[in-house]
């Protein structure tokens, strides 16, 4: 049975495609966007998050850890990174949810059982299941297995992707995917590499090719102040989208500093700690660039 590693199943997701949906977050991403709001989706392996504000200092995790990687400290429980193997035993012993294992292995059959619970809501609202991440294509076999199972169950499917994959893999999804939510971040190749760690060459090529197949696509553009919200970049995005054979709608997703807590819990540094959301006026003015190019633009998911 094909298994995958996911880090969340979010029900009543209303911003990841049409209707009321369940979004499945697959763990692992080839990009490392500085603003990423799902840091727990970056690494393919399991991780243990720790929230000291929930910690009762009961010592159960310290006692439970088979690697002796934990020790009590004034600010909470300290973890010896070199000893920890992210087995999650500590999270199992924690009764206050201070320690949480990020990631869980799941088979396609188990996943389907979960997502089909909300079928009545999909049917009633024209919703379905969205696969997000991380980059869902990184777990290609699991993703295609789950998509095929959804199609068999007659559930609408959407895939949110960075586009950073091979055309072979991306195009193989087309028969099972009713909607692609395709992220476009930065048009300048060098800046793209600077802020995401990879080149955008394949991403742009894949989007061109995908649009050419007339597969339904929505382009999603995060608006991150100082990274990609300059008019030059937005104009370049608009020009690129307008030149695609069938012009997809564009959704603008203004940056929000909501992920800070998760970075801290994972012991990761967050580069965008003090970044403010773009103002409504700014977002509106950027949206009008798309309108001027004859592109249907929507603010929010």
């Amino acid at each position, binding site marked *: 049975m094909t298994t995958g590693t996911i880090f969340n199943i979010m029900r009543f997701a209303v911003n990841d495609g049409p209707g009321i949906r369940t979004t499945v977050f697959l763990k692992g991403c080839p990009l490392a966007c500085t603003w990423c709001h799902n840091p727990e989706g970056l690494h393919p392996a399991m991780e243990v998050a720790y929230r000291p504000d929930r910690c009762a200092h*009961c010592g159960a995790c310290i006692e439970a850890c088979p690697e002796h990687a934990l020790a009590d400290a004034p600010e909470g429980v300290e973890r010896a990174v070199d000893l920890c193997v992210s087995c999650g035993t500590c999270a199992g012993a924690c009764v206050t949810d201070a320690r949480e294992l990020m990631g869980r292995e799941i088979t396609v059959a188990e996943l389907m059982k979960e997502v089909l619970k909300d079928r009545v*809501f999909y049917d009633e609202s024209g919703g379905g299941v969205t696969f997000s991440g991380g980059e869902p294509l990184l777990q290609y076999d699991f993703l295609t297995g789950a998509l095929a199972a959804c199609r068999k169950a007659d559930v609408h499917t959407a895939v949110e992707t960075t586009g950073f994959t091979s055309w072979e893999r991306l195009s193989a999804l087309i028969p099972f995917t009713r909607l692609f939510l395709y992220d476009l971040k930065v048009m300048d190749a060098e800046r793209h590499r600077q802020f995401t760690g990879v080149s955008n060459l394949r991403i742009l090529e894949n989007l061109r090719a995908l649009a050419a197949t007339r597969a339904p696509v929505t382009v999603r553009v995060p608006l991150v102040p100082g990274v990609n919200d300059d008019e030059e970049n937005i104009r370049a995005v608009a020009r690129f989208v307008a030149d695609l054979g069938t012009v997809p709608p564009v959704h603008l997703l203004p940056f*929000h500093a909501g992920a800070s807590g998760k970075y801290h819990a994972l012991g990761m540094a967050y580069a965008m700690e003090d970044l403010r959301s773009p103002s409504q006026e700014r977002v509106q003015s950027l949206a009008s660039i798309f309108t001027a190019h004859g592109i249907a633009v929507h603010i929010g998911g």
Partner: protein
Amino acid sequence: MTERLRALREQSVSIQPYLSAERALLVTEASRVSGVHSAPVARAMIFAHVLEHKAICINDGELIVGERGPAPRATPTYPEICCHSMQDLEILHTRPKIPYAVSEEVRAAYRDTLIPFWRGRTIREKLFTEMTPAWHAAYEAGIFTEFMEQRAPGHTVLDKKIYHRGMLETIREIDRTIAGLDFLGDPSAYAKQEELRGMRIAAAAVIRYAERHAEVLEAHAAACTDPVRKQEMTHVAAVCRRVPAHAPATFHEALQMYWFIHLGVVTELNPWDSFNPGRLDQHLLPFYLAETQQGTLTDDAARELLGCLWVKFSNQPAPPKVGVTAAESATYTDFANINCGGLRTDGSDGVNEVTYLVLDVIDEMRLVQPSSNIQVSRKNPDAFIKRALHIIRKGWGQPSIFNADTVIEEMLRQGKSIEDARDGGTSGCVETGAFGKESYILTGYFNFPKVFEITLHGGVDPRTGAMIGAPTGDPRTFTTMDELVAAYRTQLRHFIDIKLRGNNVIERLYAVYVPTPFLSILIDDCIARGKDYADGGARYNTNYIQGVGIGTLADCFAAISAHVFGDRSVSMDELLASLTDDFAGHDRLRGLLLNRSPKYGNDDERADAFMREGFEIFYDAVNGRPNTKGGVYRIQMLPTTCHVYFGSVTGALPDGRRAGVPLSEGISPVQGADRNGPTAVLRSAAKMDHVRTGGTLLNQKFTPELVEGEKGIDHLTRLVRSYFTMGGHHIQFNIVDAATLRRAQEHPAEHRDLIVRVAGYSDYFCDLGKALQDEIIERTEHQSF
């Protein structure tokens, strides 16, 4: 809102409610009259005496006239049911929340006249005397409450008959029925004649009451120098000359007809909860269509008249309680709950032009009374739900939303005709009824978790140490979950039997001593049967017990199943010790119970299956058992605010709940226990078989941001439709404000189910960092709908 409505509304909401001794004194005066009278005739004579002598109040600018008391917000009392003590009056006057001012004059009336006369004669005193020691023990332990200890059995709603038949026609029908009585063959002929005579007196009394309004209006009009108001008062006087004697001919007359009938019902006695016009949009449609066609009524005029009726409801605070509950009871609301939408008698879509006018008025008047709801059938258009959701989104809790198709199905299951079911709806909080044809009495809330607590102690109430339950044994000797469930079943049955025995006595007290001939005129088939509403005269006679705390109960079962009988990580002995200690020194065990146990409301079968089990046990113990009126008992799942009181008498529980904390409310999950979002809650709640109840109550909390824009309205509409597709009975959306968010920030553990829209996605509020929480609070505050 028109200037007239603004002024009337302002008057209504700005007056501090106060007690009036007018009715109490008139009833006392009439009760001193000697003579040999049957109970229905005596009650009708008292009723007629009150209506003949109570003050007539005409407020400036009003188009619908009549007050329950001598003036707006003057609240009458009902000493024949329960008589306030001087101490009660003082509590009412001084309590910080929901006070009723009590003047020196009213206190004097109580001290000198009312208390001396009624001491030893009230139904409340009689009721407590008649109850068994077992009943008293269970009542005092907080196992159940008793609705009729201070209010008369009521809970009924009107159908369309009053819009087609005036009181004169009703009197002719009563006369024909009396003439047709079979004194040779029917041993109850005399009893029927007395009941019908009472009805006749009551019908005539209400006609006279309306005429008295006409007389005062005519006198005011004659003296009025403002030609516009003079003309208005003359017109309203003419309306009062016509209704309720005759059937109404206009929209205006129809509303005034209803209001006189309403005043009659709530003056005769203080029937519990909810008396209201029911399906108002259906009743008013013929008048609206005829008059708009003739050009004698505009939408604005119709809205203004409806607004005038709304103010009337708002002018009548609920009669205040007596005894210990006087200090606790915290609402002026009398639970009049107006229905709109649903189906027509013939099964077609009932949403019409008046439906939208009524929704406009609900929106514009924004009054706590009357309450309002929409009855949503699959045949109704989405536009109807969306119009209501636009009001709901404003966050003041109205209207609530019902599944008309399930409501109808509930009534069909109970054996009602399809027409009577379609003409019915819901009232009070969520209670299903065949409007105009049913006496559906709520008899009391029932505390599931307390019964569970007593089960854990083998029949002993740990709060008092008294053995008040069935001897179901020491749970430490149980080796399987089934044994525990069986013990709970025995225990619940034990207390239900005590409750039912009491109910069947209380019901007779009202039937024998305080019949309600006026209310009986209004409910089919009391006239035809010559029987009182309180004595089985209605076509359908249902008694209900309201189950409280099903979520808490399910979580208790689930936690024990998981840890005591499942992985055996906790012994029953250890668990019971932690409950006795209210978890002091048992933090780790409590964490396990709270955070590592299945919880109802997450679409998790390990907990939801116990919800169903608890439901079935309650259903089996109650459903179908006979009452004294030819009807049967059935169940409802609603708490009003009783989950707070019940929580206060219930100790620490195996779901991790500390002693004294409120129980779960309605069929909602335990506060903060649902962590998988609204669809999971709805799925869990829909696993209950709603059709076998007479109403369930589900509350859902949202922040304004989650429901903003047309998209937000769309999603809510789809949630509602989905829940109703699954057979849910009722849902109410609480749109929470910034103040709630602030409390959530201070006390996150109690608000872990609170979902907020962050930016393009949604998350649990308590999972967000403080800065972001602050920002959302700020945003929520600046949200303007």
